[in-house]
């Protein structure tokens, strides 16, 4: 490393701290907005330091909300995010296992069929996907929130790449030890994949939690809303209408679980991010 003089280092730290302050400001201001009263906000300019109404606003949001208690929306989001993460991992690890460890007719056809989905985010085919989900009676159901979003090739690819790095000798040793394909999967492959599964779970959880358009279409009843889409519904449309502090408290609650996942599982998060993009 090329050594820097004292002043240069201090300057860089100063710039970084300033930069972080700017990047974090929107979130800070949202937090401030969630600790004051609606009146404090509409009587511009709002204060720039947190006010005393933290507990009041958050209790209000969680138990009453605007259309539906935020607690309910948090629960819906949790079900959706966890469902998508678990569902995607489950179906992908199985299909990757089939593709890597078996030879069978139409193997490559199956592979390419899954591969194709890489190319199409749900936003692009939103109208027909909605029609399919509606015709299957999936509106306002957790199944409808989760199932259409778990078709994805990324996870399948990740597992495929990983399985290819597992030494062939392990399969042979397991076969000599008397393990059949299911036993090998359960006893050897699954335990070896735990880090990958965890990293993928972190990424998919955030992906599922942050879904907006799909829940917006598929849920028409407020009690099925997820928090990210429900937030938009809560935004005051006019100044003397709605409740900004409760909305901002909801915004903070909406980012809290994924932020916690990123911060506390940073290593897995970074691994997952790098590997799913490969």
């Amino acid at each position, binding site marked *: *490393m*090329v050594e820097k003089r004292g002043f240069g*280092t201090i300057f*860089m730290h100063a710039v*970084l701290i300033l*930069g*972080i302050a700017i*990047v*974090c400001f*929107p979130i800070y*201001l*949202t937090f401030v907005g969630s600790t004051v009263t609606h009146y404090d906000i509409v009587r*511009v*300019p709002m204060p720039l330091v947190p006010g005393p109404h933290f507990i009041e606003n958050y209790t209000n949001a969680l138990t009453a909300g605007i259309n539906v208690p935020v607690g309910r929306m948090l629960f819906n989001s949790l079900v959706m995010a966890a469902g998508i993460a678990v569902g995607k991992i489950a179906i*992908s690890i*199985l*299909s990757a296992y*089939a593709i890597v*460890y*078996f030879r069978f007719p139409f193997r490559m056809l*199956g592979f390419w*069929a*899954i591969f194709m989905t*890489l*190319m*199409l985010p749900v*936003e692009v*085919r*939103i*109208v*027909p*996907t*909605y*029609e399919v*989900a509606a015709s*299957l009676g999936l509106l306002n159901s957790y199944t409808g929130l989760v*199932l259409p979003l778990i*078709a994805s090739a990324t996870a*399948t690819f990740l597992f495929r790449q990983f*399985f290819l790095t597992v030494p062939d000798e392990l399969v042979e040793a397991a*076969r000599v030890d008397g393990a059949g*394909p299911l036993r090998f999967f359960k006893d050897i492959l699954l335990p070896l994949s735990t880090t990958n599964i965890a990293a993928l779970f972190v990424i998919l959880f*955030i992906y599922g939690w*942050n879904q*907006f*358009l799909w829940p917006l279409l598929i849920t028409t009843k407020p009690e099925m809303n997820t928090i990210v889409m429900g*937030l*938009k519904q809560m*935004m005051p449309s006019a*100044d003397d209408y709605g409740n*900004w502090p409760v909305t901002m408290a909801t*915004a903070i609650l909406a*980012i809290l679980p*994924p932020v916690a*996942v*990123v*911060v506390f599982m*940073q290593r897995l998060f970074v691994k997952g*991010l790098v590997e799913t*993009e490969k």
Partner: protein
Amino acid sequence: MEKRVTFDNRLLPYLLLAPQLLVTIVFFFWPAGQALYQSLLLPDPFGLGARFVWFSNFEYLFNDRYYLQAFVTTAVFTFFVTLVSMTVALFFAVLADQVIKGAGVYKTLLIWPYAVAPAVAGVMWLFMFQPSIGVLAFYMKALGVNWNPVLDSTQAMTLVIAAAAWKQISYNFLFFLAGLQAIPKSLIEAAAIDGAGRWHRFRTIIFPLLSPTTFFLLVVNIVYAFFETFGVIHTMTAGGPGRSTTILVYKVFSDGFVGQDLGSSAAQSVILMVVVGLLTIIQFRFIERRVHY
């Protein structure tokens, strides 16, 4: 790459593959087929039947001033989102790469906005810049700026670009930092001994070596701006004022669900599928090349 050792089993592989294939067929091939089919139909005004019209939906689209405008809007939006978020992220990454103390803390503080959903980012930025209650909007007006993104298209565009770019900084930062840390320190030291100054070192050594990362991020950011920013647009401007922030993905949604023009919406879906397909191919080409060198 293939496995040397495999299991012999006739039925099992199909059973293992079945769940994913089923979900893929029902929620991917069926809708995609529907989109293709509907894009060739023109529903009658009462929604009772539809006429097969070949490519007239596409013809109509490419003669539609609003659709072409959405293309331009998307291009402008994508260009600036990518430029702003990548430049800012690179700047921070270069700094964070050079400080030795506290680099980990800076990294943690800079990556967590990644977890903020685009839609939530939109709400947060609107909260700051909404002309009537936004605190930053207030100070801008106090400084004499005539700030009103509800009516001014350029200001509205600036706002959605800022919110969308802000959300993506963390992601770009993370990859740039990893790219920078992968550059051998001896190269930079050698350049320093050769007498290259800091800016010169960055321009002639670091930036060229970072180009694989930069290219990768370029594709990812374009995909992001094209398809994942729906939440930002929907919460902040709903495509307005006028149609000044209606990007292509937003138009698919608003024509399909708000305007109920299914044929046109389906045709737009098909066009977008082609765009994603092209981007994916570019990305794969690039990844293949990266593996070889």
